[in-house]
């Protein structure tokens, strides 16, 4: 199983440790991508992206949860829109949540920087598609 090269780094922003463990394990197992960075809330992720020192470590894909402490997924997107022009790389953002609430889905679709809304759980097939789409 080979995956298109460009995806070098994936970033998971989620406070659900089991989910993050699962994603990490799956990516390693299937060798989908060599680097993975993880954050437990939106604020830590934004701070990482903003820091010019991290320029060469910027992710290709972000899997963003909605419900998180300190800074949730929505607030993250507000801040992301502000810092996006300074980023040296095009990043694909997927919103990944257990919520099947219509309001959440509509709200995510209305945000231009979000490529798609993905309902958890994320299966291997789904993950693969997301990687291909982002490549």
């Amino acid at each position: 199983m080979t995956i298109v090269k460009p995806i070098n780094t994936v970033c998971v922003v989620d406070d659900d440790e089991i989910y993050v463990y699962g994603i990490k394990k799956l990516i390693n197992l299937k060798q989908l991508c060599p680097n993975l960075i993880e954050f437990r809330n939106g604020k830590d992720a934004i701070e990482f992206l903003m820091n010019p020192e991290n320029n060469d470590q910027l992710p290709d894909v972000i899997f963003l949860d909605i419900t998180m402490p300190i800074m949730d997924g929505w607030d993250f997107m507000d801040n992301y829109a502000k810092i996006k022009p300074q980023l040296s790389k095009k990043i694909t953002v997927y919103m990944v949540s257990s919520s099947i609430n219509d309001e959440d889905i509509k709200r995510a679709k209305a945000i231009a920087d979000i490529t798609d809304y993905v309902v958890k759980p994320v299966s291997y097939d789904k993950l693969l598609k997301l990687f291909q789409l982002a490549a």
Partner: protein
Amino acid sequence: MSDETYMSIGDNPMGFYALADQYLVNQQLHNLIESTNTGLWERSITTNEAWWSPKFCELLGYAYGELESNYLIFIQKIVHPHDSEMVFNAFQSHLKTNTPYKVELRLLTKANGYHWYESSGKAWPDKDGELTRMIGGIIDIDTKKRNEIKLKRNEIQLRENNKIAHIGGWEFDTKTNDLFWSPEIYEIHELDHDTDINVSNAINFYEPPYRNIITTAVNNAIEHCKAYDLELQIKTAKDNVIWIRTKGVPIIDEHGKCIALRGIFQNINEAKLRELELHNSVDLLSDQNRRLQNFAHIVSHNLRSHTGNLQFMVNLFEEVSEVEDQKEIFNNIRTISESLANTIEHLNQIVKIQTEISNEKQELHFEDFFNNTINAIDNNVAETGAIICCDFTSCPTVNYVPAYLESIFLNLITNALKYRHPDRKPQIICETYLELGHTYLTFADNGLGIDLEKYGDKVFGMYKTFHKNANAKGIGLFITRNQIESLGGTIKIESTVNVGTTFIIKLI
């Protein structure tokens, strides 16, 4: 001339019977009386003898001579039964005190039922100076009288209707600044009807927040010919605050200028209070609805996230071959199973709130609950070095559901300890007070504080946590709020980041 004629009738030396003859032979007198449409009558005061002139008979639809020349029969048969006593009394008072005899009475016409007539007359002395007879005339006032009665009835009806509807009319002359109120408006203001009223003291009856509104509306009506229709509060002369509706319409002259305002003024207090109450219920209901819906989403989200993880781990378990990995995944599955049980326990707690509402309220002492809570968490208190003090002297007791009060104390004190500031020892002050008949309970801390502008609407949401804190589960405040609101209270938060947070609870 007529005076002379009457004089000559009264002084007629030939006696009673001669009168008719004289009347009939006096052509001039006859014509004169015909022309005024006045029928003449004459009666003896001492006997029942009477005489009715041709015009008199004609006015009642009879031929001359058809009416019996008997006063008693006239009273019994021709005068309306309801009027005969009044006629008799008027006669008596004329004879005794010489008050003018002038009555309005109903007489039975020959063919058209009762008609209204005005009858007036005068008693005349005979040659010995005795008052022996009365002479007078009647005129037909039927149309006028019927209109009058109709008008009066309408007026009474209008007034009664106004009274029932608590509605009055008013008019304001923009030139003279004269303000006229109908009686019902005085009633609504609980004012004496003869009180002097003008625009400025009328406006002063309005409660302060509404004075500007009514002043602006009146000015707009006068200057821009704009009608208004407002529901406002006034304070009556007896200090009762009531809701009224006031409607004003400009009266415009041919130049398009407002010359007067006319309008209605209605007491709508009861209806308005009911409406407001209904509004409150609707607000409360939609609030509850919103909370329920929010709750349903939370349940769905939380259960889904656990089952999703479970599915995820089971699938992964099948993929991995290393024993180490399998062990790790199994541990995760165990964690999920525990979390699932916890989540369901939380949901149970929330569902229980609704069923516990029926629990008996009791007279509870704040101090007991405060002490019990401190005892229950004394480990936590000692560990954090917290200073927790209370002052319940302003309001030592409340009638409340014991389980809820316990939960409020426990949740808010542990919440304050949980979000303590790392640089200082926690201080919590817990107080009660009474305001406008409501019992308030407050918890003030010197903790981390929270950015309300950012999170204000989410503080009491389920699983909402705002700090990097391992203990933060975000269920406590959600439950506390639901319990408080289920008993009709409210909970509010005031907070400054790095200074502290105060929760203000209106219990009842």
